[in-house]
Structures are given as structure tokens and as C-alpha cells.
């Protein structure tokens, strides 16, 4: 730790060029919070099993608590803060609001980003496909039925 190797990474963050000085052991979620004050991705289980720390790297959902920040050098990173267009929420966000698809909201950004990847790849998922795709995201309040409904409602509308 005392001999920490540091490096500079350059990447696109929510559509804008970004640069950060990082230690090589630091994770994406740590750097997003500390260097960019982006708090939508949150570390919870710390093992890539709950999905609270989800971010999109080149359009693919990753667990930000395991994904090393060094790996996003040259990549495009999207967080939940990057989905809205100005003051206009993304349709997935709108649908989560309209379907009351959260309680405490801590896991919600992760579900929204996972849904983004799902719908980018499969615009018309079946209910089973939605369940499977989102099975790596956990919600202790168990808003699951409403989350499935929110995804169904927005699918095909994007």
C-alpha cells in the first residue's frame, strides 16, 4: 500500500471527457464518488452480488465495487446521473416513478442501469427475460413486482 502504483486514466463519463489520478487497486465506484461526486452507484455487498454499484462501461453493466477504475481508461462510462436529458428523465426513470418501483431507493440506480442494458439489447423482453436479466440486482425492500411492471411498461417505448 505504501508503494501504491498510481496512474492517470482518461475516459468518457456521461458523455463528457474525464480524467482522474487513481491508485491501481481502486474500484470504479470509489473513484466515481471521490473524484466526481457521483453517488448513484453505491457499494453494498462488496462482492458484485447485489447490483447497487452498477455502472455501464461501453454499454455493458459492470459491478462498480469489483471493477477496477484502471479498466475504464479509454472507455465510455454511464452512471444513473447521465441518463436524464437535462431536466427530462429517461423513459426508464419515468417508468420507475410511474410504477412506484422502489421503496428506500438505494438499489434503484442499479436496477435502472441494468434495465438500460437489457432494453438496448432486447427491446421487447418477455417477463421471464426481465426476471433473468435483473436477477443479479437485489432489493431488500422487495419492490420486485413493481420493478418488473416498470420494465414491461417502458419496453418498446424507448
Amino acid at each position: 500500500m505504501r508503494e501504491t502504483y498510481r496512474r492517470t486514466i482518461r475516459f468518457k463519463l456521461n458523455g463528457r471527457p474525464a480524467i482522474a489520478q487513481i491508485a491501481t487497486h481502486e474500484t470504479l465506484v470509489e473513484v466515481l464518488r471521490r473524484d466526481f461526486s457521483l453517488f448513484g452507484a453505491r457499494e453494498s455487498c462488496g462482492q458484485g452480488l447485489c447490483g447497487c454499484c452498477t455502472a455501464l462501461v461501453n454499454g455493458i453493466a459492470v459491478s462498480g465495487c469489483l471493477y477496477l477504475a484502471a479498466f475504464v481508461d479509454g472507455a465510455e462510462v454511464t452512471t444513473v446521473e447521465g441518463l436524464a436529458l437535462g431536466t427530462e428523465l429517461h423513459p426508464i426513470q419515468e417508468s420507475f416513478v410511474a410504477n412506484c418501483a422502489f421503496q428506500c431507493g438505494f438499489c434503484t440506480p442499479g436496477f435502472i442501469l441494468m434495465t438500460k442494458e437489457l432494453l438496448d439489447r432486447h427491446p421487447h423482453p418477455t417477463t421471464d427475460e426481465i426476471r433473468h436479466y435483473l436477477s443479479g440486482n437485489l432489493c431488500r425492500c422487495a419492490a420486485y413486482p413493481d420493478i418488473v411492471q416498470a420494465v414491461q411498461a417502458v419496453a418498446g417505448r424507448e
Partner: protein
Amino acid sequence: MASRYTESTAKVIEPPGTTRRKSPGSGQVKRSVRRLESRAKVDGSAEYIHNLILPGMLYGKIARSSIPHGRILSIDVTAALAVEGVHAVITGEDVRRLIPDPYYGPAFHDQPILALEKVRYAGEPVAVALASDPHVAEEAADLISVEYEPLEPVFDEVAAAKADAPIVHDKLRPAATFADLKYLQGQSGTNVALSAHVRRGDLEKGFRESDHIFEDTFRNGKVIHAPLEPYVTVAELAGANGLTIHTASQSPSFVRSEVSRLLGWPENRVRVRTAFLGGGFGGKLYIKLEALVAACTLLVRKPVRIALTMEEQFYTITKHGATVRLKTGVNKDGRIVAREAETWWNGGAYADIGPRVAQKSGFTSAGPYDIEHIALESHAIYTNEPPAGALRGFGISQVVWAYESQADIIARALKMDPLEFRRRNILREGRPHATGMLMTDINIDAILDRLAERMEWDRPFDRGSGTIRRGRGIAIGIKACVAPTTSVAMVNIYGDGSCGICCSTVDMGQGSDTAMAQIAAEILGVTAEAIRVIHPDTDVTPYDMATLGSRSTYHMGNAVRRAADDARTQLLRMAATALQTDIDELECRDGAVIAQSGTRMTFRDVMVARFAMQAGNIIGVGSFIPPYEKPDHDTGQSRQITPFWMLGGAGAEVEVDTETGRIQVTKLVNVGDAGSAINPDIVERQLIGAGIMQFGFTIFEEMIFSDGQVVNASFADYKIPGMLDLPHDLTGELVEVPHQHGPFGAKGVGETGMFCVSPAIGNALYDAIEVRITEMPLTPERVLRALRQAQEQPLERD
């Protein structure tokens, strides 16, 4: 009895006031308002203490006991302090220099901020390493070396209650808060941290008069809350003699009073604030990290943050494991004549709120049944496991698991329909509960009717075939809302006429901000969406006992209602002066004061008329403490044991694979009495969410211990329910039995969905395979072993 009532120290306060209103209502309550904070929760901007980073802040990482019970011989911090970048390492002795008696807790002052002399469970905090880089702090914490002299541990709650058990605490130290714990002051040589009793009728006579007697024992293991926002506290100095604590807590008022007590400071020097909580479920109650972080901050004079990992949640607080022994006498018509219940609560190494869990759930262990002869015993027990406390239901699901499993056993033995058996025995309006209180504002028949309807109970049922067997089961349960407790609220009308609510209820996902806004809006004649709810900050928001026990809608809801009434009266008085009319001629409607003549003044107009410009405040204040009578120490009898009864029911259909023991819950119906729901959609979702949580506790969640060590302390090894686990047919059903003193008839409902899921599934399991399992969770292994045992082909133990 009568004289005790009049001499009772509990305050019997005036009944909740009524709002003088001419209009039929503003349409703000009984409306499914979307959560006020919806946008912030989908765009990432919602505030959680988890997000808080302060300039110059140090991160703390905790070194924890590696053994379940032992004396600390030495703590060597040399290697930890040698790590480059480490700011400090703090031990229990360092804390003692700041706080001479550093023991905290809501029921007992038994928990040291950091271990002193002894450790009492594996995972107990022993020392803290502080550094500005969390990775450095973690490395240093790993290098703290502690030498122990191991002592014999005790883990089982029944064994720990015996006279020859190893002793967890040399001397018992009850806090002054609860009078019924006083008798334990200074006792030694026992692990029993409270025995509570309820006696009614003549138990022996009851058993003599019974045609059948059933004796069964039920168990459940420990599980955890696992809120996805980890436990987190950040503290900083506030000026020369103050302290600010930012914490993910359900009980900011308690944190302030307890930290002040520890420091010997007046409460006004400690400020405690919270934000949204990323889940709580009872885990974030009382003191968790707050005393430790406060001590660290004062010792190093810098801001300090400690956030737990998921693994550390398993070492912080759990749900109680429990053993419940029931003896029930029934007559041949299926009437329950007598019930004896004895419950041992595995409270772990520190009492936390366990003695209250034991007392409050203990007195409901006769169930929602009308029984003449009753004796209930409930024991809070110390063991060398992580502390147990409140978990969404406060012990109720453990006792319902027992008495509703036994209800099924009895009904089947008598060849009665389980629904009919319950109908024959339930408590009805005006009948005495086991504690002697006359039941009021309840309708259990309505819950059974709804269950029967949604379960299609009178329709033929497909029982499956071959290796897939199907079954169905039901259960009902009762809880007494916590008492006695206080809530205070303020409603503030600002110079421009907009409104804010100051209250210390913590919104941890249950939607309390929205409910409070609806209640105030209903009275002020504005829309709920226009009201701002100010989050708990003890410098700003008034006292509230805590956000727990499904109490907020009823208690804080009433306080907010009174505060809004007060603000409205002041506003109307000002408007009456401005309009030179009588206050009775005016009402609040559509965001304005409207006179019978049709004259309309916006709230701003009123403020300008009063203060000559857009200025000033109207501050309405309301407080609420419901009537309560302390139960008699020996008999547990009380005329007012609770402000309101919470009632729920559940029905389950299952498919059981007889080759693997796997249970698939295909249908789960959860019925709860919400009184007149303030926000029906949110209530329904509370029932469903609680039902899924209890479904996890029933089917697979269990902390596994080996010699006192938790061996599955991670989400890799301890699964919580995910998308693919859910029953496909899952409903939350509101039954609305208005409460005469609830705000607009509402009752609390946050825990109701937890009560009955486990026995409903267990009873359905029996219905499917005729095997009774008395211990939760109902894992495939446990089911398969029980099934093979019943077939006299037992599986080998490994």
C-alpha cells in the same frame, strides 16, 4: 386493580383532538400519492448518509474479536501504527479515558463502545484504525493483534438460561428507562435479562377441563436485516464544545440522548441528523456505530466516518433466534380452553432492545385467540452470539410461527378445517386479550374472510402427483403496537405561504414523508406534493421516540395532524383579522383561505396582511402520547397495553419436490389491517415487501454458526430473495378497519406483512407431504431429512 390504575405513573393523555372542518375533506388522505422523493430516487440524487464525505475526514476500520468468549490479555497496536498513513489506533482503554463508563444500550447499559477486559462474541469490536485512506485503515486494522484467554462460551438460548451455564455478563446493568428491569439491577450469575409473565384465569383448571392437550416446541434460527445501505455514521466537531453526528439511524432522538449521557453533556451540544435510509428494518435502531464514531471524533479532533461492510452487518445486530414451547388444551368442539407458552429469546452478547422484544412479543404468544386460562412466560437470554434486536415485527413472527403451526396441528387432529378452527377461537371486539385489555377497533373475521376468498378456500385443490406434491395453508397473527411512546411535530408556514413539516420520523423506504405530507395537506387544504418534509435533525426537528414498531403513521401522524391543526387555526385567525370576519366563517381549501362570502386569500396574502410583507412564520406544534397502563409485574394485566392492535393473515400454496425437498411457493397472499389507509398503494407495497422478506426468512435465510463464528457472513453464502425466488402469484391485501384515534382512522402496517408468512408456508408444506417441520428455515435439506425420517429411511448425517 382499580387503585393501581389510578396510581399508574403512565400518563393517560387527552384523547386525540378532532379537527374542526366544514368541508368534507381535502382528498389528500386515502389517496395513492406517489412518493414525494420519487425523482431523487431515480436520478441518483437522493441523499443518504452513505454519500457523505467531509473535508479532512478519517475512515475508521474495526478490528474484531476472533473468539466468542474470552478475557483480553493484551492488545498490540505497534504494527498497525507503523503502517504509513495511519492516523491513530483506538482501543477500549482510549475510549475509557474520554468516557469513564463507556457502556451503552436502550434496555441495559451493557455494551462497551470497544471491548473492555472481555469479549463476548466473535466479531465484537475491539479496536479501530483511522486513516484518510480507507485501504490504509483496513490494512492497519488487520495488523492489530489481540491476545485472549478463552472462556467457555454458551450459544443455545435454553442452555444459557440454566443455572450451570457459563455467564456472559458478570453483573447485570439495566438502564433506568424501563421500570420492569429494575429488579435485575446488580444481579450476577445469570444470563436471563428479563422474564416477563402473563397470567389469566386458572391454567391447571383449564387443562383439567380440556379434552385434548397438545404440547409442541418450535424453533427458528437467526437471520439479519441486511439493509442495502450499510450501517454508516460520520461525526464532526461543532465549534468548541459541540458534536454533530450524521448517521443512518432510525432513532436520531435516542442517539442524541444516549451519546449525551455517555459524554456527560447536555443534549443541546449534540446534534444528530439523518437522511433517507437505504433500508432499516429495525437494524438501524438505538445505538449502532454512533457512540464509537463520536468517541473517535472527540479523541482525534477530526471528522471520522465508519461504514460497515456487508460482512460486518452480520456481527452487528440480528433477529432473535427463539425457542417457543406451547401447551394448549382444547375441548372436543375445537375451542381453546387453556394455553401455556414459554419462549426463550437468544439475545446474543448484548441486550440491545431484546428484553422489550421478549416482553412485548411474549404477551402476544396466546395469539389472536379468546382463551380463558393463560400463562405466558418469556425470557430474554444472553449468549455468546452477535447481539439480537428489533427486526420488523419485534419478535412477533417467531411466536406466530409457533402458535399458528400448532393451530394447524390441533385443527388436523380434531379433523376441523383450519379456517373454521380459527373462526371458532378468534378474539372479537370487546373481548379481553390475554393481557386483560378489551379488544377494540379490530375485525379478525374480515381478515379470515379475505383470506378464504383470495385462497379460494372452498374450491377443490389440486394436490399434485408423483414426486411433486401440492398443499396450502393459512395463518393469522397479532401484534400490539409499541407503547408508551411520544412524538412531537411542527408544521411551518413560510412567508410565501409554502409549508414544511419538521418531524423526526425517518423515511427508510416505508413512505413516511409522503404519509406525513398527506396528513398535513388534508388539514391545510393544500396538495401533499406541495409540502416539504424536513428530515430528522435534532437541532431542528422535535423529539420522536423512534421510527419503529409500525408506530409512525399513528403516533407521528397524530402529532403532525395536531401541528397542522394548530398552524391552520393561527392562519385562520390572522385571515379573520385581515378580513374583519369571524374565524368560523373561514376555511382552508385549494391552497387558500376562503370565506363564506367567497372572498379568497392565498396563504401568502394572509402572511403579507399580518407581517406587512412576505415575511414571518406560522409555527404549528403538535405532540402525541397515547394512553397506556403499565402491566402488572406478576400477571402482565393492563387495561391499556397498546394504543392499537395490528392484525394480519397469510395464505400460501406450495409445490414440494419429494426427491429434493425443495419448496416452491406458488401463491402467497398477505392480508393486513391498515385501518383507513392514508396511502393505499404504499400500504399494499409494504405488505408485499414484508411478505417477501419473511418468505426469505422462511425458506432459505439463516445465519450458520460454527463454535460461535458466523460462517456465511456474505451475500455469496447468505442469500436474500431475488427476482427468481419469488412466488409468481403474490398479493398484498388491505383490510380497512378504521381506528377511532388513528389519524383519519389509520393504523400502522409496516410489520404486518411479516407476521404470518412462515406458518402459512409450513402448514402448506404439511398439507402437501404430511410432514411437520418445527424449525425454520424450511431448507430443502431440512425438508428432505424430515420426509425421509417419516418414511423411515433417514438420510445420513455428514
